[in-house]
């Protein structure tokens, strides 16, 4: 195995274990902390995919903002959910079976795909992914509409969330 493969393997395992703990940990704050580790592992994989911008954005948005929001939400809804008792609902064996079946199905479908095991091609010369992305985001024949819509979506989400969380009983 070459070094990159080892790094990938280590972080993939860390991420998956952390993800598993996210969905099984009893204390919700621990869940949130494991979630942060899992998201960080994903950021490392982005670096391995030559997407440094997404790695930094992942850490900034997910760890810096979304995870904090989760921790706040856990603290705000704390009263009745002590860390005692099962955090799993009654149908969890069914859910586990479903998840395993889905993974097996995905594996089956993917492995019959011709370019499943394709090696990483070299980056085309002269391409600057970052400024290309910036250009595409504001080009009318590329992603201008989603770009502006994302902004409007976020505004709507923010106003809605503020309204929902601030209304009195």
């Amino acid at each position: 195995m070459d070094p990159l493969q080892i790094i990938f393997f280590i972080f993939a395992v860390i991420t998956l274990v952390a993800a598993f703990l996210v969905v099984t940990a009893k204390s919700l704050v621990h869940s949130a902390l494991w979630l942060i580790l899992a998201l960080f592992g994903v950021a490392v994989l982005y670096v391995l995919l030559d997407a440094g911008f997404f790695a930094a954005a992942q850490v900034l948005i997910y760890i810096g903002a979304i995870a904090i929001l989760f921790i706040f939400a856990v603290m705000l809804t704390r009263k009745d959910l002590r860390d005692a008792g099962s955090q799993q609902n009654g149908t969890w064996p069914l859910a586990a079976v479903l998840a395993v079946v889905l993974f097996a199905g995905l594996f089956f479908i993917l492995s019959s795909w011709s370019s499943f095991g394709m090696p990483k091609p070299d980056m085309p010369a002269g391409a600057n992914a970052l400024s290309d992305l910036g250009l595409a985001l504001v080009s009318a024949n590329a992603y201008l509409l989603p770009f502006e819509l994302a902004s409007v979506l976020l505004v709507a989400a923010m106003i809605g969330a503020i309204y929902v969380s601030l209304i009195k009983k």
Partner: protein
Amino acid sequence: MEFLRDPISFIGNWLEGLLLGWKMAPSAATALIQLLGAFIVGTFSLALVIFTIWVERKLYARIQDRLGPNRVGPWGIFQTFPDMIKIFTKEYITPDGADKVVYNLAPILTVSAVILLWAVIPFARTVVGSDVNVGVLYIVAVGAIGTLGIIMAGWSSNNKYALFGAFRTISQMVSYEVPMVLALLVPVLLGRTMGINSLVEAQTVWFAVLSPLAALLFFFSAQAEIGRAPFDLLEAESELVAGYQTEYSGLKFGMFYVGEFLHAFTVSALTASLFLGGWRGPGAEQWPILGMAYFFVKTFIVYFFVIVLRITMPRLRIDQMLNFNWKFLTPVALVLLIATALVEKGLQLVGQDSMVLRTVVHLGMNLLIVWGTVEILRRSARKERQRVSEPRPVAIAPQTQASD
């Protein structure tokens, strides 16, 4: 001669040649040298704290008409070492009900997040840890990790004061990140790149001259990010004991302390790099060692202002702190960003690329925004004065109204 011009990359090249001569694979040699470099940068940044703590204490004392440390070594310059020995031999006390793992991880994470910033700071043209093409975003992202350390410290201590302190800290740090990122977008826009070293190279005219407002916005929001006076609500001693560090003792507490001092210095280094031209200066291109000198001189000048700000300002109230951010810094930063984009594109369309014109137009635009802001502030201050000076109902008011 070659050695004198650029000692660090000279040693680096020599080492690489040596390792390759020993039949080491080139990639392994690079990795080893980078590891060594990382080790040196990390050690250096931590060693720096020993010095900056002394600088800060001395300056603090002088402004308050005291002597400050003056016993150990000349001017007390070695005062930090006995302090270190003391704190190394202090007992760790872990409070009941603390979440052990998270509790011990928090101080490490807090300090790490600060040292991590040094990975992208360029010391000279050739002495750069790493010039990743997303340097600016990296800085902000690493700041997010620091936030995490604080919330972990507050939550795991099982103490109300700690949790309150952590919550306040988060809402402060999180709020001030918005103008900070906005202010950082201005140099990115002016330099068309996110790499820190590339940004330094792009500063033929310092960005602090091109856009002084962005420099100020960054400076102030960074102060809040560090969390010291006047923004030290997170550990407001009179209200919250010591905030999120209440339950920490010994070196674990010391680590938070180190983190704060190092962060102050790091922010100065960032300000110097991003806005004051970093290692740029006469002769720095040919003589990288000169560049290092320029960089540290600039950093220490900014650091001086950081300390003075800390010493001379009273603590803000929490509502004032949030108002200052959301109702002052953020709108100004948004306006500045729009204006900068318009001016840049306008100059490009006209086809003027003379540096003088660019500087003058940008500077004028900045001054215009400052003038507008001051005008608006004057008006709202007048209103506020009227509102406060109006007679207000006091505790007995409801009774007199009822008798009418």
